[in-house]
Structure formats: C-alpha cells, structure tokens
C-alpha cells in the first residue's frame, strides 16, 4: 500500500489586499478587496511505505501547505489525498494515531515543564498503554540519548537537545509516517549530523516512512533517497537523490582567508565568485574537481588563515534546477 497518494491536490487562500497609506486603509474598510493566492497547484505524487522523501523548494513554494493537507491541518480546495489509506480531512483523528510530526518552528513540549511530563501527556493522548509506554520511552531514551534531559524543564534545554526530545515525543505512539518540516533549522553541524543519523535509523530499523522538508542540502544528501521539488505550488522534479546529487548537488562553496594577499591557482571546475587578494569565495564543481584537491592546493603554501566549505543555499540549487530545465527545453 502507498503511504501517501495525492492526486491533483490544490489549495487556494484568500487574502485581503490594501493599497499604501491611510486613505487606502479607509477604502479597504468600506470596500475590502481580496486576492486569491494559489499555494498548491495540482500536485500529484505517490510515496511508498518505508521511503525517505525530501520535499524541497524555495520559501513560499507550498511545502508546508502540502504537508498540512497531508496531516489534516488544512482542507484541500480541490483534489484528493490518502495517507495510509485514510482521508486526512474526514478521518483526521484516526490518521493521527499513525503519523508523527516535527515542525521545526512549533514545539509540542511544555516550555516550563520537563519533557517527561509532556511525554506522559502525549502517551495518554495517543492512548499508549502504560507498560508499553515505559518500554517505548526506554528505547527512545537510549536511541536519542536523552536520559539526562528528561527531568530538566524544556526552557533550560539547548536547541539541539530540544529537537531530540521533540522527535522522541513524535515517535512515542509508533507512527508509520514521520513528517519533518525543517527539523534541523538553527542546529549546529554536530547536532544536525546526529539528527540525520537518527532519521536514517528510524527508516532502516522501524520501516518508518519519512517525509522531510528542509532548506539544508545536507539533510537531503545524507538522509533521503528520493527528492521531490516544488516551486510556486507546482511539482517540478521528482527524482532519486543520487541523480539530484550528480546533477545539482555537485557544487561546494569554499570561503578562504589568507595571511598575506595571494593570487588563486587556476583549476578546471573552480570559479571565483569573489576575490579580494586577502580573501576569496569559490564555487567548486565536484564532478570536475574533487573538493580535497582544491583545499590541498589552497592550504599547501601555509598562507591560509581560515577556510570553510559549505553547501550552496537551497535557493541556489533550485535556481540551478530551473536553469538547467530551461536549457533542456530550449
């Protein structure tokens, strides 16, 4: 059975529009004007059970709206959707026993209380038997290494600790699908890595289907096997992450600062985005030039004060996707 099946899914929002200034405010009071925005346009997709899918797109592309329709938060304007065979609109409560959600921006833990109290409440909301809950909690505590955090009020936890507790909380009731909306937002590199490992483990060991949105190319590269790209509410690409990596995630950004001004060595596949003599920002095509070779060449002379390697922002990757699709079409 497909975990998620969406057919011509569409969502419109009606928003009030107002011109500039006070007179426009008065006009709007007497005769309000509305504009219809299409957040999601006829999206059709199928996700099989156990898949880890990255759902990516720039800000305002319709990612969160789509997830909210899949989880029953929003009602679609048109189209149909089935999640684990349930209709999220009419069977919201029945569906919610089988899905877990982590919204990076929204917490389900009580801010002033230790996570353990929130866990106990959630177990009762999801009607998890007390004994079963204890076993599940022990398992999640070990997996997420949150034993030392259970009795500390959430407000005193670091962001990384809180996210680990949030994900553990969303798994207390054995969900079959986990919706993760920007789970690594604001986390440092080490914690991001740990969260990615945990998501991978969940899929491998428990067969949980993972539907993930992220602005971090690393999340997609390291966790997901399939990527669905949307923009302006439209599905524009649906391909294996391996192919996405080869075609689009093949660029790294290298920022380097030197002790003394120096000229940059010329490399095939390396483009200088900015160069001031004392510092430079380079774009490296890893298909043409391994990143290790570039770093070795730069650091070889002992003149490097600082160097960082980063993935390009998701917006740039999406822009690349669009540029290459335009080229293909023309």
């Amino acid at each position, binding site marked *: 059975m497909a975990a998620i099946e969406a057919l011509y899914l569409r969502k419109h*929002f009606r928003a*009030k529009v107002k011109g500039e200034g006070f007179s426009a405010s008065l006009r709007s009071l007497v005769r309000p004007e509305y504009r219809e925005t299409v957040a999601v346009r006829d999206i059709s997709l199928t996700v099989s059970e156990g898949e880890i899918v990255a759902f990516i797109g720039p800000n305002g592309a319709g990612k*969160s*709206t789509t997830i*909210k329709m899949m*989880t*029953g*938060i*929003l*009602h679609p304007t048109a189209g149909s959707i089935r999640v684990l065979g349930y209709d999220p609109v009419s069977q*919201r*409560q*029945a569906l*919610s*026993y089988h*899905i877990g*959600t982590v*919204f990076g*921006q*929204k*917490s*389900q*833990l*009580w*801010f*002033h*209380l230790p996570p353990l*109290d*929130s866990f106990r*409440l959630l177990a*009762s*909301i*999801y*009607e998890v038997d007390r004994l079963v809950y204890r076993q599940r909690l022990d398992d999640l505590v070990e997996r997420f290494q949150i034993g030392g955090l259970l009795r500390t*009020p*959430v407000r005193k936890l670091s962001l990384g600790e809180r996210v680990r507790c949030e994900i553990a909380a969303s798994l207390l009731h054995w969900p079959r699908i986990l919706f993760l909306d920007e789970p690594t937002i604001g986390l440092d590199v080490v914690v991001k890595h740990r969260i990615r490992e945990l998501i991978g483990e969940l899929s491998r060991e428990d067969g949980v289907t993972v539907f993930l949105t992220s602005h971090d190319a690393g999340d997609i590269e390291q966790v997901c096997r399939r990527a669905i790209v949307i923009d302006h509410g439209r599905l524009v690409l649906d391909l294996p992450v391996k192919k996405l990596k080869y075609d689009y995630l093949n660029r790294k950004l290298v920022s380097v600062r030197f002790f003394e001004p120096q000229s940059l060595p010329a490399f095939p596949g390396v483009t200088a985005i900015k160069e001031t003599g004392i510092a430079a920002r380079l774009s490296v095509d890893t298909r043409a030039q391994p990143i290790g070779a570039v770093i070795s060449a730069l650091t070889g002379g002992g003149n490097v004060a600082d160097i960082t390697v980063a993935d390009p922002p998701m917006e740039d990757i999406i822009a690349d996707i669009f540029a290459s699709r335009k080229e293909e079409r023309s």
Partner: protein
Amino acid sequence: MFREVSRCLRLIGRYFLLNLSSAIEYRASFLLQTFGMAINNATFIFFWWIAFDKVGGPIGGYGFADIMFIWALASSSFGLAMVVFGNAPALARIIYSGELDTYLLQPRPVLVSVIAARTSVSAWGDFAYGIVLLALTQPQSWSLWLLFALCVITGALLTTAIQITAGALTFFMGNASMLQQMALEFTINFSIYPESIFHGAVRLIIHTLLPAAFIVHVPLTLVRSFEPRMLLILLVVTTLYCAFSFWFFGRGLRRYESGNLIQTRI
C-alpha cells in the same frame, strides 16, 4: 458517545494536572497571583457596602446578600472556567496566528484540547474568592452549597462557550481578538449588577447572545425560591449554548488557514 465524553473528561483532567504542575513551577508567582486576585475582588465588597449604606434599601430589587451571591457565583464560575479552560479567552489569537496545528495533529477533539491546554493562575484566586464570599455572606445550608456548586459548573460552561463563540468568529472575519475581549468584559459586567438595571436590547442579549442572565441571575432566583422548571431551563440553555459554540467552532475550522509563526507551549 459515552466513551467519547469520558475520553474528553480524562483529557481535560490530564491537561488540568499538567497545567497545575506548570503553574506551581513558579511557586511565589502562583501564590501572589492567586491571593492578589482574591484581594482585588474583595475591594468591591466595600464599594457595594457603601452603596447600600447610602441608598438605604435594595438596589434594582437586589439586597446586599443578593449582590454578594451574584458576585460569589460570577467569580467562582469565571475562575473555574479559566482554571480548566484557560486558553478559551485566547482562542481568537490562537486561530489567527495558526496555533491550532498542534491540536489538529492529535487524535482528540480539537476544541477541547485547545481550550484545556492552558490554565490561568490568577483564576485560582477568583475561584477561591467566590467560595469564601458565599461562606461569609449567605445564610448557610446544604441546598445553597449544592445549588452553588451546580451553578458554578453551568456558569463556567457558559462563560467558556461565550468565549468559544466569540473566538471562533476569527474563522469568518479575521482577527476577532478585540471582539472576544469585549465579549468577556460584557459577560463579566452583565454578571455583577442587578438584572433589573438592564432593559430592552441589552436584556435580550443577556438572555441569548451573551447569556449572562443564566450565569448568575437565574441561579439567584433558584436559590431564593427553588423551582424545578427553572433548573431545567438553566440546564437546557447551558447544554444548547455549549452545543451551539461547539458546532460554530466546527463550521469555522473548515476555513482554518494555519500559519508559520514560531511558537512554544507554555
């Protein structure tokens, strides 16, 4: 149906305990807010005492004991409503800012979950104040306390239902926070003065749209001269008004638009 109601009551109980734990996490603040609110309410006794002293007889057909009864009932009803359903007055803001998401993701009725998810600490002071006032100003009897307890519950349900109805207007007209705040203030104001001072349209409103008359004035009639028919009317009105507010919220929920505000649960 019975199973669903009992699940809802269990959920309210769990939220209540969790909220209480959260409130007493700050012990000094909890005690200060509770006693502070009780003392704030107590100042009004002197106001009414002076007013009755000046007038030298009943005001609007109500004696001093009657006024104290409606104060006690209004205070405890409001207190109970805000202790158990402390999120109800924030409903418009919660809908407007897209904070219903968390509750929509859980296998429980959204409305019950959202209104029970928070408590008002100072409302403990309101609740306790009403009980103390009843004990100090009324001729004591078992029937008085029994009726008072029942009417505190119906009053709390009506207060909450008024807040739900006003808050749910947000689904239809955008941010109704101000309107909800006004509904709360009107409900309180209509509940702490003699019923006979309200005439015409206002009188109609307090028996229909904002049924403050059923929060305190009908219970006062019941306490002064008990009539089973009146009790039945009170229970039917409470049930119908609560059912209406649930239905109205449910209708509005279909229009919910969510949001992306960063939020925590406090």
